[in-house]
């Protein structure tokens, strides 16, 4: 059984690779979507593409507008402005039932008075397909989602994961152009989630249908998405592969929402960054900014290197000296809280110094032990500079506050 799945996955992966070359052709395409509810803006000028066989994750906190985007694509909500295209065809004005999209609702929305097989057959029965064809595809789908032995059961008799597979089979039955998953794992416990994520991923590759996922869980986004679109307050902050989003966040929000990030306020001066009394050379990064411009120095906890002796490894730029405030052992790595003494925050701080988070992999932590209140030299392997704005709302693209 296990080997069969693995085989299926490998099989699917081969198909997937072959389709990857055709990526330019997008199946689902959203252009300049805007939407307000009772005067409140929920979406602002959202555009993105989903390629053949690709899975895109819309990642955002609750209220970021991600569900509204999904509902607009499905035809359950009308945008105030903007278009939705499926396979090059403008479907913005088509009702939900003529769009051929498959929605897997958060609650699964299975029909409680129909058995598993009736649920799966629903899309074909309302299309008045011949009885034999219906039976055949229901059999195939139930095999695909491994629910053959549950076909006569009612949804209430199944576990959450099984119900979800019924929901997927039910949408796959009518060969949708795109699958939309609304918080697919929200209702499940942590362990089941991880297992189902992998199952769905394998299944999607097998059937090769593009998918759009909605989630607020960054871990889920990293695992499910070929690409991730980060949404914040109705705006698309950044879209890219998980690596791009994680390694090169373009906004402060993206940096902090996906993974942990340290942010230090600074100023660009002469191809380097001044952070309080400390200057760190940044010839490449600072080139994008003019002298005197306020920036945020952004780095991940794992991009921090620490040294008691002052000898930092090659490729690690010295930032400053700090004192260790806390050490936590967190499984595979060690997490440290440090206070940087020469770096005063731009705000009138009550405690001198700025706290940052650093992590060290277990072998390194074991090789050179560090203790609370040790003084260490702090360096950075990489970091990014982001323009800094006085208020969160002032971003490029919104007319006001550019370059403040």
């Amino acid at each position: 059984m296990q080997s069969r799945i693995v085989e299926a996955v490998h099989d699917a992966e081969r198909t997937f690779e072959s389709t990857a070359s055709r990526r330019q052709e997008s199946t689902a395409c959203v252009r300049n979507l805007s939407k307000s509810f009772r005067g409140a803006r929920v979406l602002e000028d959202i555009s993105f593409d989903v390629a053949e066989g690709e899975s895109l994750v819309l990642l955002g906190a609750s209220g970021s507008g991600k569900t509204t985007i999904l509902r607009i694509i499905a035809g359950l909500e009308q945008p105030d402005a903007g278009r939705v295209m499926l396979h090059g065809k403008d479907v913005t004005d088509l009702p939900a039932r003529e769009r051929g999209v498959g929605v897997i609702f958060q609650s699964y929305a299975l029909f409680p008075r129909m058995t598993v097989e009736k649920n799966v057959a629903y899309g074909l029965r309302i299309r008045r397909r011949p009885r034999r064809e219906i039976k055949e595809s229901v059999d195939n789908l139930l095999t695909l989602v491994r629910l053959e032995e549950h076909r006569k059961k009612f949804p209430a008799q199944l576990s959450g994961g099984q119900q979800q597979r019924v929901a997927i089979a039910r949408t796959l039955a009518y060969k949708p152009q795109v699958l939309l998953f609304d918080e697919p794992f929200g209702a499940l416990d942590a362990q089941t989630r991880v297992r189902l994520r992998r199952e769905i991923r394998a299944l999607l590759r097998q059937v090769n249908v593009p998918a759009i996922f909605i989630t607020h869980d960054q871990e889920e986004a990293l695992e499910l998405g070929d690409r991730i679109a980060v949404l914040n307050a109705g705006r698309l902050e950044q879209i890219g592969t998980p690596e791009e989003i994680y390694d090169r966040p373009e906004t402060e929000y993206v940096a902090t929402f996906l993974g942990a990030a340290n942010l230090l306020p600074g100023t660009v001066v002469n191809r380097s960054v001044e952070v309080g009394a400390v200057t760190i050379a940044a010839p490449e990064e600072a080139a994008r900014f003019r002298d005197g411009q306020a920036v945020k120095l952004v780095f991940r906890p794992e991009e921090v290197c620490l040294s008691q002796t002052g000898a930092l490894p090659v490729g690690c730029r010295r930032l400053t000296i700090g004192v260790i405030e806390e050490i936590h052992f967190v499984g595979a790595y060690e997490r440290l809280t440090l206070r940087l003494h020469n770096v005063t925050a731009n705000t009138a701080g009550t405690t001198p110094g700025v706290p940052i988070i650093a992590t060290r992999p277990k072998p390194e932590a074991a090789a050179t032990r560090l203790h609370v209140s040790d003084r260490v030299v702090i360096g950075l392997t990489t970091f990014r500079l982001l323009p800094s704005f006085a208020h969160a709302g002032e971003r490029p693209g919104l007319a006001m506050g550019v370059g403040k």
Partner: protein
Amino acid sequence: MNVDTAKMEPAKVSPRRGVTIRRRPWGRWGLRTAAVGYLGLMILLPISAILASGFGDGLAAFWGDLTNGIAFSALRLTLITAVLTTVINSVMGTLTAYVLVRYDFPGRGMLNAMIDMPFAIPTLVTGVMLVVLYGPQRTLGAWLESNGVQVIFATPGIVLALLLVTYPFVVRTVQPVLMELDKAQEEASYTIGASKWTTFHRIILPAITPAVVTGSLLSFARALGEFGSIIIVAGNIPGRTLTAPVYVFGQLESYNQRGASAMSILLLALSFTLIVIVDWMQKRWDIEYAFP
């Protein structure tokens, strides 16, 4: 030390509680007797009185009281109008509930509040309202009459009165079920490709059928016994527009207690059966829904 007292405490308490119960059995039996006695006095005693009166002269007399020309036609009229009312109610009530739950429109709150009006209006007043509106001297009534439709003092008037009086039943039983119905199920059906009608009769209707049937049976039971509005609207012509409850009233007026009792027993039995059926169905459907 501490451990010891802790161990002893329950031993001290439990016999004391046992004694309390044994000393005052009145607390328990008194309440039960009161409840059962009240029920007997208020419900069982009158029922047995009517049974004694109706069956007092034997089964044959009872049967005769129900099947004599006037009684039988009154019974038939009541059943026909009640069935008609129930059918119309089940359709219009479901429609009203659906519109109230699924659509947002100006005046929805008002409409929702007005649904219960028939419960609040004295049925006598309902009758008066209908006579004023459809009476032969009135514009609408006169116009209808000139077109050959007699409403007041005829069967249509009875049905209209029953419809008005029983309108809330189906609406109020279906509405909460519709509200609880996961809207995602409907949306799923649309995205799968179903039309509004297909979605309604394949997804929504199966879910609300128990509520529709319950509401219909309740409105049927209510229609069987309606008196206040009918006596004003129907004209009460024996053999033509005399309904069973009005017949009972007439028999009492003319000192035929046995005849009044016989018809009452039948109406009582019908209503009681309906209530038992509703109760049984609800239990069955509840179980089915929880463990299908």
